[in-house]
């Protein structure tokens, strides 16, 4: 009806996966902000290291056992995570449900292990600045584990309702990307908390 020349977009898809979609960019925005926070916290850790002669000051370093086991669990959770991401991309609802439940089992495991980790740090946040830095770093990562787990619980519940459309699978895929961030950022944090006191 309109006499102006037109660019008809009605045949374009209503959702896309990956970096051409809004959700991907939103997730990357959060990753950039929180990644910056982790970098700053680790920098602060090494900054306060500069001003004391021994490290950790008059304390044994954190026990390796729980932290190391948990690192392995976190790394292994990448397997179901990748599986969910692929299932989401081919929109296989059954596989997505199964994969999300597996991820949640891993989440339960690493949260329990994290609780044990907190008992094996050999310092408290109010012992000295070293203790404050360790607790802040580990606490901040634990906050990410908890929120990512709760987020995944909500998403899993949603995938068991009947309101499933294509966009929902994009959400699953983005949740998987965020999971990678939470696992990936743990690797340097593990190095700082568990290895730096032994090496510095």
């Amino acid at each position, binding site marked *: 009806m309109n006499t102006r020349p037109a660019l008809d977009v009605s045949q*374009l898809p209503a959702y896309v996966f990956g970096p051409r979609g809004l959700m991907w960019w939103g997730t990357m*925005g959060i990753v950039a902000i929180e990644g910056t926070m982790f970098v700053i916290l680790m920098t602060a850790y090494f900054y306060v290291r500069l001003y004391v002669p021994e490290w950790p000051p008059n304390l044994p370093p954190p026990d390796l056992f729980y932290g190391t086991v948990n690192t392995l669990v976190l790394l292994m959770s990448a397997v179901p995570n990748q599986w969910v991401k692929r299932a989401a991309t081919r929109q296989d609802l059954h596989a997505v449900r199964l994969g999300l439940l597996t991820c949640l089992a891993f989440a339960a495991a690493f949260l329990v292990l994290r609780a044990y980790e907190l008992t094996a740090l050999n310092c408290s946040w109010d012992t000295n600045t070293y203790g404050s830095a360790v607790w802040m770093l580990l606490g901040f990562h634990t906050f990410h584990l908890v929120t990512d787990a709760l987020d995944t619980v909500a998403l899993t519940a949603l995938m068991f309702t009947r309101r499933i459309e294509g966009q929902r699978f994009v959400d699953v895929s983005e949740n998987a990307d965020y999971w990678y961030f939470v696992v990936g950022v743990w690797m340097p944090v593990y190095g700082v908390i568990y290895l730096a006191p032994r090496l510095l």
Partner: protein
Amino acid sequence: MAGTGGRTIAALADDHERRTLERTWRPPPGLIGWLSTAHHQSIGKRFIVTAFGFFLLGGILALLMRLQLAQPESQFLGPDLYNQIFTVHGTTMMFLFAVPMMEGLGVYFVPLMVGTRNIAFPRLNAFSYFVYLFGGVMLYVAFLLNVGPDAGWFSYVPLAGPEYSPGKRVDFWAQMITFTELSALAVAVELIVTVLQLRAPGMALHRIPLFVWAMLVTSLMIVFAMPAVMLSSTMLIMDRLVGTHFFNPVEGGDPLLWQHLFWFFGHPEVYIIFIPALGIISCVVATFCRRRIFGYTAMILSLAATGFIGFGLWVHHMFTTDVPLLGQSFFTAASMMIAIPSGVQIFCWIATLWSGRPRLHPPLLFVLGFFFVFVLGGLSGVMLASVPFDLQVHDTFFVVGHFHYVLIGGAVFPLFGGLYYWFPKLTGRMLHERAGAWNFWLLFVGFNLTFFPMHQLGLEGMPRRIYTYLPEMGWGDLNLLASLGSGLIALSVLVFLGNVLSSRRHGRLASDNPWQAGTLEWATSSPPPTYTFLHIPTVSSREPLWEQSADQPVVTGLHRDIREVLVTSLLDAEPVHRIRMPDDSIWPFLTALATAGLFVGSVFTPWAVPIGAIPVGIGLLGWLWPRQKDYDEQVTLEGKR
């Protein structure tokens, strides 16, 4: 079909389309509707009006300080109240006025300028506004109850630490930071995604308006700068509340850690305030010279360079600490280097003015005022970049003079220009021009009277943040002059306020494009409808309204009964896919309320964090859980393939 008949039918169809779009995009009615709307125009206006409200409050505090300092040994304010006043003044102007004001302009105008119908993540946008509002209200409630922060807007430890600032004053400051930075970070992500993904087809990177470029650079800076202050203020409140030792030297902490973290945010903050102003200036200069901006590419490179170098300057705030010599040299060089991109831009604007036919309306007047004031502020900045000079005037009124030249000159002058420029689009009416001229000249004269003498006072040794001084120091005359000047500034702001209030009702009606500008926000009515454009435009030039022919194609094929927008590719803005924007919802407001409860509670007890997290979680669930309508509409969208 005969020509006239065809046009009539087309007009009827347009009318029908307009009504459907209006029904789809309008906010729900009533108070609940007001609290629920997720539309960028409503939220943007709220940011602008609220930030201006805080500007007035901060201004009143400034006037109180000038009254106190007008004569030696004044008894008007006591030292304790004076400390609270300068702290709340600085905090207000930086966190509650400047950043939210610039972001508000971005929230309102970026979607219009890139040619889409709403900002990305609109509910997050509504949430950001309420979090900001609650944070500001909390600060002022605390101040009125005599628990206003009193350790300066940067809350240096150990003064702000548990030992020297017992009580809750600094805790309110620290949580005000959490409120405002959360809000700013969220808006930054929304703006980045809007610019990268929601541009009209054809608006490739080399056709993006300079204001939009400026908001993009600003938002990226926010993403990397603001986490530092959020974390450091969290460390501060933990030192005060749960006994951590980040800044306690006895247990291995270091007060300089605070300064590093604070200024790693605090220096980029200056550019976060200043770069949007550069975008405003480019719009105003181009429009009022009626020509393309000279050196568009150089302008963008300068904005980006400023964004990068802005992160390499923070130590120049710390020259009086034991920074190593090499560090001092590095940061001196960087501080001088940042003058280069600013200089490039100023020369580009001068070239544009030179080769154009400038029309001296209020917006351009304020921009010309910016040139004068900002160049002076830049010069005293280059002086301060030199370490020996900085050591001499550190913590004196010279610095107060300098940064008011940079911040008021660099941001407030262009901001007023921008408000005169965009007021017709915001309200549909023009501001009064003669009052605008009064507004400008009172501000210009008052500003220079107030802040120029401060340089001299600083050189004479008058320190910052003192509540009074002795008559024998000989600072009385210049202080009186400064105080008189501040009266003129107040008068100027009153003129502006009167102009806004009266023009809003009785001002001349504005056409769609009253200044004959070239960018897309002027392609729709004034004020714009909630759906922004009847047809999403396509773009084939940098100044579409000047350079595009009437039969430039428009986008068709989007649903009118669903809030659907077009997503385009990052570089060339080719259409990629369509998405559905979320509906209005009360949940972002409720979540913001719960978040406020958590933050305010955490001033008093750490248990507020785990307990307060429960209502926040419920709020998020209500916010994100899809309703039947969401599902139905999404299915309709997807089914169309």
